[in-house]
């Protein structure tokens, strides 16, 4: 790949070997590592969509036009503590989120879980959704799969489950 063509500011249309297609403006191209840093879109606002692409995987590209350097070096600024803090906070968030995500469950199951969690206290027990600590919904998460709990609770979970499934279906079909 010609390094000369990867000039800063060039707007390229790229196809990757994995089938991705997109347009991006070059912020930087590092020869040594062969990494192309692109920003998608032409905005020069403070926040951009960044893509780091290994040039090896470019199947095809074309130069759309040549623009100015999208990165204003004068405005560059790094504050490590902020970054670190941001990372810590993101990790905390992720950790608490991880409680919400089932492991080894299908995304459909996850969707149902999320739907149930809107109105009921739910948690995962491996691949079983445990509602109100007493009602259990196991794969395949059909109304028949609801077991346990008081009859009232059981009924309620069943109803909610049915309702949510219907919703998913209609949503799915409408897409």
């Amino acid at each position, binding site marked *: 790949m010609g*390094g*000369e063509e990867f*000039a*800063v500011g060039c707007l390229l249309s790229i196809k*990757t*070997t*994995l089938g*991705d297609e997109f347009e991006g403006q070059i*912020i*930087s*191209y*590092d*020869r040594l*590592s062969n*990494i192309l*840093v692109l920003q998608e879109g032409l905005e020069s*606002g*403070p*926040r*951009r*969509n*960044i*893509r*780091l*692409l*290994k040039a090896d*995987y470019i199947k095809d590209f074309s130069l759309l036009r040549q623009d100015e350097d999208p*990165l*204003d*070096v004068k*405005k*560059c*600024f*790094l*504050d*490590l503590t*902020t*970054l*670190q*803090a*941001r*990372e*810590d*906070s*993101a*990790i*905390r968030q*992720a*950790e*608490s989120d*991880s409680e919400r*995500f089932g*492991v*080894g*469950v*299908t*995304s*459909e199951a*996850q*969707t149902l879980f999320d739907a149930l969690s809107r109105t009921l206290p739910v948690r995962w027990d491996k691949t079983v959704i445990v509602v109100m600590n007493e009602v259990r919904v196991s794969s395949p998460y059909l109304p028949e799969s609801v077991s346990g709990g008081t009859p009232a609770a059981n009924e309620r979970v069943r109803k909610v489950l049915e309702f949510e499934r219907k919703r998913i279906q209609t949503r799915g079909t409408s897409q």
Partner: protein
Amino acid sequence: MNAQQAMLPKSSANGFGHRRGDREVGARVESKVQSGKSNQGRTQTSGEMAGGRTGVYESSSRDRLVYLTTCLIGHPVEVHVKNGSIYTGIFHATDAENDFGIILKMARLIKDSSLRGDKPITQLVSKAPSKILIVPAKEFVQVIAKDVAITRDGFASELQHEKHQELLIDSAITQSHHVEVERVLEPWVPGEDDPQRPELENVFDSPWNRNWDQFETNQKLFGVRSTFNEELYTTKLERGPQMREYEREAMRIAREIEGEETQDLHLAEERGFDLHGNFDIDEEMRFSSVQRGRGFDDSGYEEEEDVMLDSHNIETFGDSSDSSSRRPADLTSLQGTVEVRIPSSSSLVDTSSLETIATKQLASELPSKSFPMSDNESRIQNDFLGEYKGSSDAKEFAEKQSPSEDLQLSNPVDSRSLLNDKIDASDKAGPCEKPSSSELSGGTASSKVTGETHSANSRGRPGSSASSNSGCVVAVSAPSGPGLSPSSSMGSLSSEKSTLNPHAKEFKLNPNAKSFTPSQTPVRPPSPVSDGSFYYQAQMSPVPRMHMPVSYGIGSSFPGHQPVIYNPQVAPTQSPQPYHPNGPQYGQQMLLGQRQQVVYYQPEMQQYKGRHY
């Protein structure tokens, strides 16, 4: 340049951030230095162009890469790998030294290249997030990040946004493994951005000091008309010509009291004294916990101890012990209610009931009252009780009193009224944190009270009678002493309506009763009943037999209602148990030991028909 760049370690980030064009990658600083050293200098001066266009960009290209990857730290990114799978996670670091392998934290596989075709998307099974995922440079194809802040403004806005976003709930903080150290708490100081509201500065001042009327504001803002009438909830203040004097006096007394030294931590805190020589005190003790046990405070208070320990009781149930301990004879009947009848009744009002006294009423009441004088002389009494004026007299009296008494009475008892034998204590009986007028009245009332007690207790022990709280009322019953029978006390205060129960039985002292010596208990026994009884008994011995009127109950059902079977003859069966065989009864009835000093509840109906004194 190298030297400059060498100071790149994470910890120096702060100072670093100010320099333009600086790039850093978390852990790989040194290597970066090496590789980029010749470039660093150039990039510092952004405008400089060395060599051709490509040359400039080349030298800076690596830097840019490093810069941008640094911008990604903490940001959620998607990493596409060679085999087509996609991971999502939090960008942690990149190996800038080598070929930019990626390290993600809390990464999840969201697209697994190995699963294709058959299963619909919804069926794909999720994987557990891995704490750390390392994607070697060779593997990664792309890193996609959305909404990345890459300039100063971007960072600023992101910071703000995040601050608002993240609500750290306790469980999140404690669960996270990254937060191991307890946060160092700092006192809040208003920042520049915090709105200044000068009109709210003195919110804790007395109501008439604030320049802000809540009702008015509410009406203005919401059109709500308030029907609040202060007088519905408290005694009406008679704002007469003497009001100012009373206020002044009250303020003075209040100031005196509040300026008193105290051993009580909480009081001291309020008054601004620093008692914290003892460093065992933590925040909880300083600001919230109840003081229990005064092992360290007991020195010098022996004689007062019983009184003080009992003040709680006294508060609620009336100062039976006190009076009793002092002298059965002198038991003054206390007009129990707050509205008090102190003035109205002749009685010897409980000195400790500064709180009681501390009602606005007094200010208004007192002047109008002609103070009942008991037969017994008391110069003090004559001096001022008679013509209570409010200011000078009270002052005099107060002054007389103060020097003689050790004022540190209030503490362990938590600002409860102090039952103190000595009259002196009376007007310093307890810190009264009430509005000034009440202080005033408190002061005056107490002086009155003491005067009265003097008179009544010519024998010397100013039995302060039961203190009363605004909430509970207890009156000390029957004091009859050898020279003072209920009737006589009634008689002496003939001008006033008597609050004594005319139907009460006479108290007869049982000289054979066992005497009891209170032991020093660090912790207050749970039952207030017991306290009273102990002390009472202790003091009983020297007193000749008395008969004690016993009355119980509320309402006018006195005569028929005599649950207390006080019978001195029954002595042999009476063991020094704190409770009467009938069992402890709280509330309006209280039995304290055998030798009952009955504290009974003076129903307002009884002696108090309306508020005239």
